[in-house]
C-alpha cells in the first residue's frame, strides 16, 4: 500500500492499474476456490487451508478495492454496476463468514442431528407419530377435546412452513411462541389422562419446532451461497469487460 501511495505521489503512474491487476489476480484466485472444491482428489492443498486463504484474500481484496476506487463512489454507470456486484460478493461473503461460524454451534444442541434433505422425511414421521397419538387418545379418552384442539391449532402448526424471518432475525419462532401460549391456555380444560397425552404431544411438537429451527439454520447455511457464487461469476464477466474497456479507452494513461 505504501508502494501504491508512493507511486501516486511521485510518478505519473496511476496506481489504479496496479491495484486493478492485483485485484483481478486476487479475485480470480478467490473464484478458483469453487473450482478446487470440485476437484477434491487432486493434491492441491486441503479445503480448510484454501478457505483460510480465501477469507484473508477476500478481506485484502476489499482494501484493494477501496484503493482502486479511490475511496469514493464511482461516477460512471457501468463502473457503479461493477462496484455494486463486487460489494454484493464481498458482503455476502462476510455474511457467510458470520453464518458459518455461528450457526453450527446453534445447530449442535438443537435436538437431533438431521441431514437437510431428510427433513421432509422426518417431518412426515413426526406428523405420523402425532396423528397416531391423537387417534389413540381419541379412542382411549372419549369426549376428549384433544382432537378438536389438534384440528384447530396443532395441525396448522405442523403444516406451517418455518418462519424464516423470525428465526433468523429474532432467534425464536413466532409460530412456536404462539403455540406455547395456546398449549398453556388449553391445559385448564384437560383431565389428568389428557394431560399425560398432552405431555407426549408437546414432546413431539417440540421436535417439530426443533426441526424447523434446523431447517431454517441449515437453509441459511446453504442459501447464502446462492448469492455469493452466481454473483462471483457475474463479477468475473464484468471484470473482463472492464479490463477491455480500460485497456482500449484509456489512451495510454500509465
Amino acid at each position, binding site marked *: 500500500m505504501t*508502494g501504491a501511495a*508512493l*507511486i501516486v*505521489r*511521485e*510518478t*505519473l*503512474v*496511476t496506481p489504479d492499474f496496479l491495484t486493478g491487476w492485483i485485484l483481478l489476480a486476487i479475485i480470480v484466485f478467490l473464484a478458483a476456490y469453487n473450482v478446487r472444491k470440485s476437484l477434491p482428489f487432486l493434491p492441491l492443498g486441503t479445503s480448510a487451508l484454501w478457505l483460510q486463504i480465501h477469507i484473508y484474500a477476500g478481506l485484502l481484496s476489499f482494501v484493494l478495492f477501496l484503493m482502486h476506487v479511490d475511496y469514493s463512489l*464511482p*461516477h*460512471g*454507470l*457501468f*463502473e457503479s454496476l461493477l462496484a455494486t456486484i463486487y460489494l454484493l460478493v464481498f458482503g455476502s461473503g462476510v455474511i457467510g463468514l458470520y453464518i458459518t461460524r455461528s450457526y453450527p454451534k446453534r445447530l449442535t444442541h438443537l*435436538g*437431533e*442431528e*438431521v*441431514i*437437510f*434433505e*431428510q427433513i*421432509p*422425511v*422426518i*417431518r*412426515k*414421521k*413426526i*406428523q405420523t*407419530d402425532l396423528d397416531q397419538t391423537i387417534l389413540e387418545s381419541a379412542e382411549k379418552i372419549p369426549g376428549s377435546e384433544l382432537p378438536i384442539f389438534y384440528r384447530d391449532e396443532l395441525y396448522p402448526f405442523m403444516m406451517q412452513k418455518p418462519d424464516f424471518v423470525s428465526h433468523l432475525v429474532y432467534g425464536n419462532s413466532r409460530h412456536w411462541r404462539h403455540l406455547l401460549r395456546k398449549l398453556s391456555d388449553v391445559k385448564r380444560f384437560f383431565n389428568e389422562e389428557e394431560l399425560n397425552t398432552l405431555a407426549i404431544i408437546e414432546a413431539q411438537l417440540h421436535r417439530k419446532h426443533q426441526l424447523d429451527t434446523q431447517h431454517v439454520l441449515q437453509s441459511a447455511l*446453504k442459501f447464502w*451461497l*446462492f448469492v455469493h*457464487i*452466481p*454473483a462471483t*461469476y*457475474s463479477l468475473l*464477466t*464484468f471484470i*473482463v*469487460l472492464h479490463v*477491455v*474497456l480500460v*485497456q*482500449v*479507452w*484509456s*489512451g*495510454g*494513461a*500509465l
Partner: protein
Amino acid sequence: MSVSNSPSGFDAKRYQHPQQNWVCGRLAEGCPCPLGPSTRGECLSENTCQPRRSLRSRRNFVTGLVFAASLGVCLLILGGSSENSSTKLFETTNIISPGPLSSPHSAIQEGCKACHSASSLSPVSMIGEIWNSDHAQHQSELCLNCHRDFGDHSLQAHSAAPELLELLQNLNTLEPQLTSDQQWARTLTDHRVAHAKVLNCATCHREHQGAQFDLTHLTNQQCQSCHENTFHSLSDGHPEFETTRERIRFDHSSHFEQHYKNYHFLMPGGIPKQSCNDCHLLSADGATYHLAGFEAMCASCHESQILDFNMPTALRLHQFEFVKQTPKTESPSTEPLSLPPFLELMLRADEKIANAIEALQTIPQTDTELRTPLLNSIEEATSQLLKDLQEQGAAGVTERLSRVTQNSNNDKQIVSVVKALDQSRFFEVLSTNDEEATIGSWTFLNNRATVVYRPQQHADPLIKAWLDFMASEVDHYPDQAEGTTPSRFDQFFRDAISPEASGRCTKCHTVDRLLDGSMKINWGLLPAEYFYRQFSKFVHRPHLTLMQDQTALSEAAQEDVCLKCHQPETPKPFFNRDAFLLTDGMPRAEFRHSSSTGYLPIQKKDCVQCHQPKMAGDNCLQCHDYHVHKNSILRR
C-alpha cells in the same frame, strides 16, 4: 444425557447422495423411493414421480443463468459502445463513461469518437486493440485534431524536438538529488524521457473527473518523475535562476549614475529617465514589461550617434566619378587596394576580377609592375560595373550578389538588400546627372568622387539588410588560435559589426552565433531562437499588486518595487564588461550569474520568500510550461 442416536424416521441403512442432480419427487411428501431418479432425471420406479432438481443442481442452474445474463449484458454494452452500427442494439456510451467530462470538453458535440479512437472500432477490433501497441497513440492524435498548436513534436516530451532535449540534457550541470521516495518510485516504475517514444496525452491529462476538474494540474513530483536529475522543492534543490545575456546592450548603472546626471554635457538634447517605468512599460495583460521603443527611450541621446559623419561603412562607392566620366585623380599604384565591401563584392562576381583582387593581396606593395595592370583592370571593372548597374538596376545587383554567394542559399537576404537599395534610391544615385549633394541617404563626397550611404535614423533598412546579409554569409567564427584564414565574408562582417561602423548598430545590438554556425544580429529583444525562455514564464502584475500593497504608494516607492527583485549589480567599468564580448549565443557558464544590463539576475531566495507550499505555492507549473514549441511564444 448428551448422547443422541439417529432419530426415528431416518433410514440409516442407506447412503445419502447430496451430489446427485435429481432427487425423487416424493421427497417433499416425506416418502422418497429408494431407487432414486437416474442421472438424467427420469423416474426409475413404476409408481412414477416427477423428479426435482437437487439444491446443488438448482444452484448451478442459477449460477449459469446469472453468468449468461451477465455475459449478455456485457456483450450489449460492448456492442453499443462503438460507432459501428452493425452490432449496436442501443447506445451504451453513457453507460461505459466513467464520469462527467470537464466543462471545456463537455461542449463537444461529436460524442466519444472525438477523443477515443476505440469508439470508431467494431467491438471485435476493440478487443484486438488491446494487443496493438499503437492504439494509445491513435487516441492522442485525436486530441491533436483540436489542440493543433503544439508543433511538430506534440507527442514528444515537452512537445519539443528530441535533439533539443538531448542538448539541454548535455548542458545540464545539476547534481542529481533524488529523494529516497523518488528513488523508490523509480525502482517501481521505469520512466525515462529517453526511452519514451511517444508520450500520450493521457499520461498527464486525466479526463472524466467531473466538470470542475483541472486537467492541467500536476504535482511537482509528477513533473520530476521523468527528469534524470531531480530535487526536493523550489526552496530545496531547485537550481538558481540563470540570467541571459541581453540582446541590447544597455548598462543601467552607468546611465543612472553618470549619463542621466551629466547628459547636458554630452547630449544636450537628451531626455534623461527618472524611473524604471519611463522605459519599461507593463503589457496590457500585466504579464511582461516591454520597452518603450528606441524613439521614446534612446533617440533623444543616441539618434545623433547613428547619424554619422564619415564613419567607416561598407556602402560606399569611392570611384563614382567613373560613371560620370569625371576625370579621376591618379591613384598611385603603390597604395594598397582598398575597396569598399559592397563594391568589392560586386566586382568579385567577375571571376577574373576576383582573382585580381586576390592576387593583389599577396603581391607586395613595392612591386608596381605586377600591381598596376591588376589595379587597372580593377578600375576598369569598377567603371564597367557602375555602367552595368545603371543599366540593369536591381537585377544586376541581384545577379552579381547571387553569383558571389553561390554556395549559400541566401536569396532572401539578397532580395532584402536589393530592396533596401532600391528604396534608398541607390539606382537613382547611379543614374543621376544632377548636382544634388544628397539623394535620399546617399551623400556625394570628394567632388562627387565618392558616394556614401549614411543612415539617417535608427533602424535604417539598408544598413540592417547589409548587416544581416553579411551575418548570414559568415561560415564560421574565426578561431584565431587555430590560425585558420578567415574568409572574406568574415572580414566584411567584422568590419560591419565594429562599434565604429556606420550606423553604430552593434554599439547596442549584440551578435550571437546560432546552432548552425551562422551569426545573428539581435535587432529585437525577444530571442526567437533562445529556447530557454520557452520553458519558463512570469507574470508581473500579481507580484506588483502584492508588493505595492506592502509599500507606500509614492513615486519613489514605485521604483522601489522593481528594485525589490531586480537588484543592481556593483557597477563595473563600461568597456571591461565581459558581456560585450562577442558570444556564441549560448549562456556561457561564466556569464550565468552576471548581467549585461547592470542588474543582478533574479535571486531564487526572493521568490522562495513567498512561493512556498502553504503560501503562494511552489508548483512547477506556476512558473514552467510543459508544452514548449516555436509557437508557444506567441501566447505572451
